[in-house]
């Protein structure tokens, strides 16, 4: 799409909610690289903690776009809140080391997904992609998915709880996977890769109201996002990306340099998302299926 008339004139203010995690580096980097300015947009990143806060703000018009896990919009769609996914943001890897994984303490003796049955496994948020894919992985490996005891433990707290023996295994993201493996904990399974390879971890969403009332803005933002994500995928820009993490997250240098980044990309994998919803329904995490035709409107 062409840049809107504002390209040379005034910039349009856009507020985007994003989690303060290393994945957001692409957005920060893109802004710094001037990709959004070229599109006539002046982006402010609002660090919302997950969809619970971002979606109300989206509906109320305080923010224009949000980047979040797909389960947020799933749930919102089930409640007819008027949310649309306009593009992907980041996905897990279909092969190789994934960006999230279930890690078990060596004491627990767990090495395979099926052994998770009957054990205490932590996820950061119950009733979302984590436990759904883990259950799927357990079942696939021949275990009884209903027997896994999930508890909610935030990613950063998981290593300590694992060490203390309060949980047997934990579903964590980077940098905790690396940290745990280094100390001798066992990587059991990367549940996304094992069940829906390449599953989207973060998507870009907006309200259907904004999409209908200001299609131009949505289009401008989409094209800027697309360019940004392409920019982020380019290995040549990795240094800038890591710099963005350091600037915005105050992570220790070493961690920022080593943290594994997801696969960035704008094109949605609708089939993967639908599969996730099917699994969620199967394990009674969702009682209905979101209306994908309404929810997913790839820009």
């Amino acid at each position: 799409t062409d840049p809107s008339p504002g390209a040379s004139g005034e910039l349009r203010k856009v507020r985007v909610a994003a989690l303060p995690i290393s994945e957001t580096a692409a957005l920060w980097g893109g802004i710094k690289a001037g990709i959004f300015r070229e599109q006539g947009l002046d982006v402010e990143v609002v660090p919302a903690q997950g969809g619970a806060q971002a979606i109300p703000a989206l509906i109320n018009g305080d923010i224009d776009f949000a980047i979040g896990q797909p389960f947020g919009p799933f749930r919102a769609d089930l409640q007819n809140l008027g949310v649309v996914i306009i593009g992907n943001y980041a996905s897990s890897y279909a092969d190789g080391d994934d960006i999230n994984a279930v890690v078990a303490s060596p004491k627990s003796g767990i090495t395979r997904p099926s052994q998770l049955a009957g054990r205490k496994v932590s996820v950061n948020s119950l009733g979302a992609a984590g436990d759904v894919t883990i259950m799927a992985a357990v079942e696939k490996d021949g275990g009884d998915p209903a027997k896994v005891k999930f508890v909610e433990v935030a990613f950063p707290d998981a290593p300590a709880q694992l060490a203390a023996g309060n949980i047997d295994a934990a579903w964590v993201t980077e940098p905790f996977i690396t940290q745990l493996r280094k100390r001798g904990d066992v990587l059991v399974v990367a549940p996304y890769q094992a069940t829906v390879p390449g599953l989207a971890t973060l998507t870009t969403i907006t309200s259907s109201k904004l999409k209908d009332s200001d299609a131009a803005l949505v289009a401008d933002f989409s094209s800027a996002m697309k360019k940004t994500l392409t920019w982020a995928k380019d290995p040549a820009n990795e240094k800038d990306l890591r710099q963005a993490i350091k600037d915005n997250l105050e992570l220790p240098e070493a961690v920022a340099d080593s943290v594994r980044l997801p696969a960035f990309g704008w094109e949605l994998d609708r089939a993967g998302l639908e599969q996730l919803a099917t699994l969620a329904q199967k394990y009674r995490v969702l009682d209905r299926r979101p209306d994908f035709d309404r929810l997913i409107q790839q820009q």
Partner: protein
Amino acid sequence: MRKILLGAVGLLGFLVVWQLIPALGLVDPHYLPYATDVFGRLAEEVRDLAFWRRVRLTMTSWAIGLTVATLAAVALGTVVGLVPFLRRATHTTVEFLRPVPSVALIPLAVLMFGLQMRAALVIIVYAAFWQVFVQVIYGVADVDTVARDTARSFGLTRAERLRYLVLPTALPYLMTGLRLGAAVALILAVTAEMVIGNPGLGRMIELSRSAGDAVGLYGLVVVTGILGLLVNVVFRFVERRSLAWHQSVLADEAAR
């Protein structure tokens, strides 16, 4: 002076215990870092201007929230406490609203005010309000019967009775309410920043947490505690001045 010294002894004792917990291997120092490390990090932090900006942001929402909550609670608490009809009529409603956790109201606040400081303020005010309100209601009811008869017999006007009888009687209660409210307001200022993500100490805590940076995290927790401590020092000072006539302060003076 003695007081400061003794207080320092208490804090020091705590620091020693803290240092010992990881040192004795009770907890892995990765998760509960040494006190020395934490204070070392803090010493670096305080040289950073950004740190002070965050402190200022947090304390601003704290101060605004507490002030609004206190004013509202004192005004409403006095009226409700003094008028038996209102007191009885609002009783169940108050008891119903009080236990509603402010954290659960965050989405509502966000919905109404967006991801802004105002949303955090609403939460702070809501939580701190009840702390002061309950104390004021009880304090206002504690007026001595003879003292009240005195005021009535001399024909003091309502405003005068309020100013010279009811408020001084309720003042010790109010002071306790303020100290409780101040701590709750600080807790919620930080928590709201953690959850909503508006800039300040709380967001920094959340960042350190998601980065697995335990030393930084506890450094910030310590900062929060120290802020609470300072707030208390201020309130203690105000209290000593305004309650110089009160039994509790008198007893301390006499013991000197």
